[in-house]
Structures are given as structure tokens and as C-alpha cells.
């Protein structure tokens, strides 16, 4: 796969069809992958990588590094492709300045799961077939891949690419998932239990803003959380109110536009399950206004900028909530 991608990237660069390539490159560790812009065949030969650690969603990076006077090749996994489609719908990127190649993803490895298992001193990790070999200072260990696959990949919503110019590999399908099960479990708790649960989670937030920075739906040039006049720009959450407020507003601002790509939960250094907030909005939208998947098609109208005269009244929540 990686070799085919490199070959196409070099061909497109050589033909002048594109002048830049956005892909993944390795940092210090095998599992430490960063998005990068490549402009020459040499760079691609040296650094370009596509493996089971390339979880980074390139859509946000593409948005940040777009140039409209030249064409850029970008490789997108299915979830990245949903994010990109949403960005195109919102006119945040110029589709004509992009050459999109869809690539498959067979589940990305979450190194945090390996670390949580008590593994330290990791020197290298290789993923072969269904096995993941971890080589450390203190010896080697092998996992079955599904044991260390990220939560979002285990609950993959789709293997399809809503937007592309070219595909490498086969086009996949929308998947049946159990991604709302955790939300339903929380909904079944008493308010007191839920309150305790979320206090436990949200009070760990250090307001690093990584979740916002990584999110491909968060593309405001100046965010309210950076505006010193907003009164909510404080970096450290000094009060429980502020923790709640930050998380409600962050999730609300992407409600209806969040594609459930899982980047926010992936990047959170405090392992706060942010996807449980996003998925609550998604499941409410599905329940109240009909099934909706953000980024599934260019030009969709997001549910919060839409309405029907028959919409449920807000007191549905007080009445116990099922549409």
C-alpha cells in the first residue's frame, strides 16, 4: 500500500499535476506519526509513510496548509474523507485546489492501550498481519491487533470515501457499529450517577485545547476560547463550571458537523472520552430529526441550520426524552 502511494505521489509531482503532497511521516518513534507536506520525490522516498499508526486525520492539516494557487495531493482515509467532505460543504477548503486519493484503513493502533498495559521503554513496534510486536528495553511482547486497536476503529462507522479523485484499493461500505452503546449506558444512569461520572472525567481536563486544535470541524480562525474579551478564554479551568462550559461549548459548536472521526479523543493527553459528548449530540440528532451523518455528501444541510415545522419541542428532554 505504502509503495503504491509513494509511486502515485511521485508520478503526480513529476507530471506537474500537483506541486505538493500531504501525507504522513515518522517522528522519533514508530508510533509517533506526524502530518507533513512533501514537495519532492527525494522527500517522499525518505520520509513518506503509511502504516497502522497513521491515525492523524489529514483533513485538518490540509485545511491549515492549503494553498489555492497550486494543486495539492492529499491522501485520505475513510474518516478523513468524511471530514474533508464536511469542510468542502462548509466552503472551508477549495476542492479545485485538491487532488484527493482515497486509501483504505484496516484499523489504527492506539499506542496508549499498549502503554496502559504497563509496557514501558518501547523501542519499536511492528504490525504484521494480525499481530503487533512490541520491542522494548525490557523485552518483547506480542498482542493480537484487535487488543490494541483504537476505540474509534473498533467502532468504525464506514470504510467508504465520500470524496476522492482516485482510490487505491477497494471502496468499502458503511458499517454497522455499536458506537452509541456507551451513550445509551450513560443515559440509563440516574442524573446523580451521570454527574459524578462527568465530574470524574472533565475535572481532569487541563485545557490544553488539543481537542479543539485537532478537530477538523473546528476551523474558526479566531476561537472564542482564545478571545481574551470573551470571558471564557482562561487557559486553566479554575472552576468546575468552566470545565463543564468548555466541554459543552466545544461539543455544541461541532454538533451536526462532527463526523465522529475520533480525533478529539485520540489527542486528549488526559484520556477524556470526548467522543461520548459528540456521540450524544449525534444520537440525539438521529433520534429527534432523523438519521444524519455529517460529511457523507457534499452540500448537505447540517441539522442545526435546518428545521421542520413539526420538530419536537425542547420539553421532550424534561419529559424523559425519546422522540
Amino acid at each position: 500500500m505504502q509503495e503504491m502511494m509513494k509511486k502515485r505521489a511521485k508520478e503526480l509531482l513529476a507530471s506537474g499535476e500537483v506541486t505538493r503532497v500531504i501525507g504522513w511521516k515518522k517522528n522519533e518513534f514508530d508510533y509517533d506519526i506526524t502530518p507533513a507536506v512533501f514537495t519532492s520525490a527525494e522527500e517522499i522516498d525518505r520520509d513518506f509513510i503509511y502504516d497502522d499508526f497513521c491515525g492523524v486525520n489529514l483533513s485538518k492539516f490540509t485545511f491549515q496548509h492549503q494553498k489555492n494557487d497550486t494543486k495539492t495531493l492529499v491522501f485520505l482515509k475513510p474518516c478523513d474523507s468524511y471530514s474533508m467532505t464536511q469542510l468542502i460543504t462548509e466552503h472551508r477548503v477549495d476542492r479545485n485546489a485538491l487532488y484527493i486519493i482515497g486509501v483504505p484503513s484496516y484499523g489504527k493502533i492506539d499506542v496508549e492501550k499498549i502503554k496502559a498495559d504497563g509496557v514501558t521503554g518501547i523501542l519499536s513496534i511492528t504490525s504484521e498481519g494480525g499481530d503487533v510486536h512490541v520491542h522494548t528495553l525490557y523485552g518483547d511482547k506480542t498482542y493480537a491487533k484487535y487488543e490494541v486497536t483504537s476505540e474509534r476503529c473498533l467502532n468504525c462507522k464506514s470504510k467508504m470515501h465520500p470524496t476522492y479523485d482516485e482510490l487505491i484499493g477497494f471502496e468499502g461500505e458503511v458499517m454497522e457499529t455499536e458506537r452509541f452503546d456507551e451513550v445509551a449506558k450513560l443515559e440509563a444512569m440516574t442524573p446523580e450517577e451521570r454527574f459524578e461520572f462527568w465530574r470524574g472525567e472533565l475535572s481532569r481536563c487541563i485545557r490544553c485545547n488539543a481537542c479543539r486544535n485537532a478537530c477538523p470541524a473546528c476551523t474558526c480562525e479566531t476561537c472564542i476560547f482564545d478571545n481574551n474579551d470573551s470571558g471564557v478564554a482562561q487557559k486553566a479551568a479554575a472552576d468546575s463550571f468552566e470545565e463543564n462550559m468548555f466541554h459543552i461549548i466545544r461539543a455544541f459548536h461541532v454538533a451536526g458537523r462532527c463526523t465522529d472521526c475520533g480525533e478529539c479523543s485520540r489527542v486528549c493527553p488526559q484520556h477524556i472520552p470526548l467522543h461520548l459528548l459528540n456521540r450524544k449530540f449525534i444520537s440525539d440528532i438521529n433520534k429527534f430529526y432523523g438519521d444524519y451523518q455529517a460529511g457523507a455528501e457534499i452540500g448537505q444541510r447540517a441539522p442545526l441550520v435546518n428545521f421542520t415545522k413539526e420538530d419536537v419541542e425542547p420539553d421532550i428532554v424534561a419529559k424523559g426524552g425519546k422522540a
Partner: protein
Amino acid sequence: MSMNEFKPKIVAFCCNWCSYAGADLAGTNRLNYPADVKIIRVPCSCRVNPLFILRAFQRGADGVILCGCHPGDCHYTTGNYYARRRMTLLFSMLDYLGIEKERTRVEWVSAAEGAKFATVMNDFVKTVTELGENKRLEDLRCKK
């Protein structure tokens, strides 16, 4: 009045064209509703974004109510339809975080419904009084 009798602070966002006029009518008709209801006039129910509601709680509200024109009667045609979706999702999220769902409400009150305005407010104040002080969404720094 005994010292420990709890009187809730209520913030009512009222759209200028219907509900605010409805409140006015309640006043000119000398209908009673508790003085703890603080009205904030907004151009349309749709002007209220989730942060308004949260901010009201932060600054000490025990209950927040949004009043607008009846669906179909919005002065800006469709503002309240958007507000309706927004508030439904916000209230549901607050409930999901374990914050009492009775502390937030939306009511459609027209300019002719002074009596409805008073009834709604009396009822809401009663509900929030029974709930007691807002503890789950308070900001200790804002407490005097």
C-alpha cells in the same frame, strides 16, 4: 419571611416582539409573578446561543427560561425554529451531564398572552424552588 426560605434567581430571555410584550401586558394587567424573575430582552429567541444559558447559570441563576413567539409567528419568520432545535439539543446535553433538566425551559408566549406569561413564570419559579439552589452548574468565583 424566614431567613432560610429559598428564593430562586430566574433569568428569562424574552424575545422583543412577543414574549417581552407579553410580560409587559402581564404588568399592565397587574398580574402577579415573582420578582425573582429577571427578564433579559433579546431581539429574537434565536439570538440566544448556548453560552447565554450557561453564562446565566454561572452568574448565579437557579433556572433559565427562554420565551419566544409561537412557532410560525417569529418576527424574523423562522428564528424560533432554529432556537427550538438548539435548545432541545442543549437541554439534552445538560441532562446528559447530570444537571437537573427542570432548570431549563422554553415557552412560546405571544404579545397577547399576558396571563400565560404570569402562569408560566409562577410555575417555573415553583419548580425551581422545589429543586433548590443550582449547585451543579455554579461558579464559586461568582458567588458573593
